[in-house]
């Protein structure tokens, strides 16, 4: 089994420009330090119809009010609100691409907390197996225990193609006696992702799931 950079076509070049936009890194950095309610707020804002900050402050009083959060937490929430509104203000088509890139960057940043060798847009090749066209969003290229992640903004993005590709990779790695951990990262509620998975007939019993409430676990080394 070996990792390889994905081939770059016109679409990936455009998307690479979005991935490299400092706004993506800024939002991901804020999300990496955020609490679950703050991440819920960011998701709502980046999915939202309205872009007036006062509306979102009213919708999330526990983050912005005079409650127990304290000034440092309120400041963090304000920064995340402002950055999320920048994404929302990019318009419908662009915001879809930004949101995807943000989940990937957040995943990479959380994984890097373990000191792991984290890479992006990589294919995984196996001897005698036809290579998948689509690269994995984020990989951890540890010889001892490699990992591959597919990142989704919403649970709706979980489909049979994604699940099959992840499980095929895990299975092919096992054929080479390599334990490849595969998982989906979804910036959405766990419950919604679990509902999505329950209906899927694709193999996913050994595919991990990291959702809005559990995404911090990416930064914790598995024992």
């Amino acid at each position, binding site marked *: 089994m070996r990792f390889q950079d994905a081939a770059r076509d016109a679409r990936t070049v455009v998307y690479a420009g979005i991935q490299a936009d400092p706004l993506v890194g800024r939002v991901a950095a804020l999300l990496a330090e955020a609490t679950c309610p703050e991440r819920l707020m960011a998701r709502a804002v980046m*999915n939202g119809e309205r872009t007036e900050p006062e*509306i979102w402050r009213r*919708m*999330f*009083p526990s983050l912005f009010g005079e409650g127990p959060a304290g000034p440092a937490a309120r400041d963090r929430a304000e920064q995340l609100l402002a950055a999320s509104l920048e994404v929302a203000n990019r318009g419908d088509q662009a915001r879809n691409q930004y949101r995807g890139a943000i989940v990937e960057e957040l995943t990479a940043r959380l994984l890097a907390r373990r000191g792991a060798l984290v890479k992006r847009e990589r294919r995984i090749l196996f001897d005698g197996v036809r290579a998948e066209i689509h690269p994995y969003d984020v990989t951890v290229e540890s010889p001892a225990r490699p990992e591959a992640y597919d990142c989704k903004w919403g649970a*709706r993005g979980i489909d049979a193609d994604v699940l099959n590709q992840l499980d095929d990779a895990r299975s092919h790695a096992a054929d080479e006696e390599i334990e490849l951990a595969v998982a989906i990262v979804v910036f959405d*509620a766990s419950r*919604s992702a679990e*509902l999505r998975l329950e209906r899927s007939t694709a193999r996913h019993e050994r595919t991990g799931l990291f959702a809005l409430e559990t995404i911090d676990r990416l930064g914790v080394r598995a024992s």
Partner: protein
Amino acid sequence: MTERADLLESAARAYQALAELAETVEDEWQYVTDLTEAYLPSILALAGADSGRPLSDEAVAAVQEAIVEIGLIADPHRAIDWLSTFPGIVALALGGSEL
């Protein structure tokens, strides 16, 4: 009805309307149904939780803003995203952690 029950009844009606919009994405009918069947009872169940305490003005305003927000959605694809997000906002506003 209590203020809490009234508010959550309004939230549930708004959520049901959002689900009807989302259902127009035919390929996702099953997922929309699953989300609605999971979350709608949870929203209504919040009416019975902590019913002895009056709601704060902030909590009422938060839920009302969320109801207005989902009422503005015209895109059924965005509606699917909000079927998953709205219940969490309502629960957070009313002091719950998640639905």
